[in-house]
């Protein structure tokens, strides 16, 4: 597959995407359109059954190749149209990690190292490159110390990092995460968020559906707000979380935003409320008046 040269371009293009699961009446995704640039971090928010998971599945080709149903519109991943491609080809463009660490383990491998190599064996990567990629994944996830353990003997957080390592070993340029920390304890969640941010620094484009708004606000570039399958907003965290109608869509803004709203503390320049602690402190007269978004 040819890459499209050196210029920055849209990694993900979604045009009027509509999708309905088989045997249902309601559209799971209803006219969703957005574009994501290379290296961006995108958060997907919305209440349960707003279409977050369906969108994650659509970006990785499981919709429409694994789940049948009515499909309309267009999804382009790195220039490849999802509908006419295959899950295997797309898996090397956009990797998917989801919430349950247990079911993401193949159960056919006895060590973490072999588990991570599973996908590479399937796509026919040579042994030398396989070893190189697995070592890289282990290092990125900080799990070199558990490489010889059985995947099922690990804690949830470790297992989830193994799942991410297995997916990034396929060297996708996009990583799609569907509530990756919803089944983890706070400390394990923290570890997972840390490695996601590290992957972002490596230049991987990240799309993450999450309920932990404080976390999303601190490291995403833009937020996609979904409600009953419809796209409500796609903007910076400050703009999305400052919306007055957020509660109508079942989304609770970060605690800092709620607090500042109650206190009427608004950034005069941008006319938005702060979304992170750093922004609150700078608004209260911290050292730099510019919001230092990391």
């Amino acid at each position, binding site marked *: 597959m040819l890459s499209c040269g050196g210029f920055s371009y849209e990694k993900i293009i979604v045009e009027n995407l509509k999708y309905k699961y088989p045997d249902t009446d309601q559209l799971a995704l209803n006219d969703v359109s957005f574009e994501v640039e290379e290296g961006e971090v995108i958060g997907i928010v919305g209440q349960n059954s707003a279409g977050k998971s369906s969108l994650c599945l659509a970006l990785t080709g499981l919709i429409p190749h694994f789940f049948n149903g009515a499909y309309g519109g267009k999804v382009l991943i790195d220039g490849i149209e999802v509908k006419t491609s295959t*899950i*295997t080809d797309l898996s090397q463009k956009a990797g998917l990690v989801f919430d*349950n660490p247990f079911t993401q383990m*193949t*159960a056919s491998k006895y060590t973490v190292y*072999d588990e991570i190599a*599973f996908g590479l*064996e399937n*796509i026919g990567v040579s042994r030398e490159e396989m070893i190189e990629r697995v070592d890289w994944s282990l290092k990125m996830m900080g799990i070199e110390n558990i490489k010889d353990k059985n995947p099922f003997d690990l804690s949830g957080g470790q297992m989830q990092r193994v799942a991410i390592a297995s997916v990034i070993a396929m060297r996708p340029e996009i990583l799609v995460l569907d509530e990756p920390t919803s089944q983890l304890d706070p400390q394990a969640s923290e570890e997972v968020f840390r490695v996601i941010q590290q992957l972002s620094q490596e230049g991987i484009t990240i799309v993450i559906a999450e309920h932990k708004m404080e976390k999303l606000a601190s490291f995403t570039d833009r937020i996609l707000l979904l409600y009953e399958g419809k796209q409500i907003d796609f903007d910076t965290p400050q703009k999305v979380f400052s919306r007055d109608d957020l509660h109508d869509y079942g989304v609770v803004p970060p605690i800092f935003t709620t607090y500042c709203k109650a206190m009427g503390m608004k950034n005069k320049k941008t006319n938005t409320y702060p979304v992170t602690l750093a922004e609150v402190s700078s608004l209260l007269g911290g050292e730099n008046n510019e919001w230092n978004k990391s």
Partner: protein
Amino acid sequence: MTLYVKQDSLIHEIDPITKVIYAFVAALLPYILPSHTVALIVLVISIMLLVVGKVFRKIIPLIGLSLFLIVSLVIIQGIFRPDNVTPLFHFGPIIFYKEGLSYGLLLMLRVINLLCAFGVLILTTKPDDLIQSFIQKGMSPRIGYVIGSVLQLIPQMSATIATIKDAQRSRGLETEGSLLVRIKAFLPLIGPVIMNSLISTRERSIALEVRGFNAKQKKTFLHEVHTYKYAKVIQAVLILIFIFAILWRIFL
């Protein structure tokens, strides 16, 4: 859930396919040639291989498990075999006959021999090496995956069942007591278990899909299954012995 014992021995170094052929030839020989001597010779060879493979101690509990079957075979044959004519000894009114005991002994040797022959294979071969060898010989990777994952998924599933059982009991479901109580408890237990495995199966197949499980490319392998220098020679000898035994049985 695997019987494999990690050891450093000559038997561990032999490639899986050769050991598979050995297990089948050794298990079948005493049936093809129904004599005590043949059964005994093959059994002694298998035991020697187990000793060389440093796993002999692991086979004893397996034989112990089947001891009940083995002993009852000998007793029943000794007392009731139709062609029993020569009484050997008796406990009160129960008479043991020579023919029956001899046949029972042969059956016993066959069972123990079968266990030892497959013991050589299973105790000294990593299950994933075995599956990988079969895939490289042309078995479908999907079947290979099913065999490989069952070994790990069964313990996972029994853990799930235990959790669901505890959850239902904490809601007041009676799972212990008379047969009727147990039957009544079956439905509220099996329902969630089935639902749960359906959901995890779907999730796991998604996880497999996004890792190229359906790739059309030729599969590669992280580990080289070690090839054994004399594999071809041993395999040829084993197959020759097997053919020779069949010919012996037919013509002599």
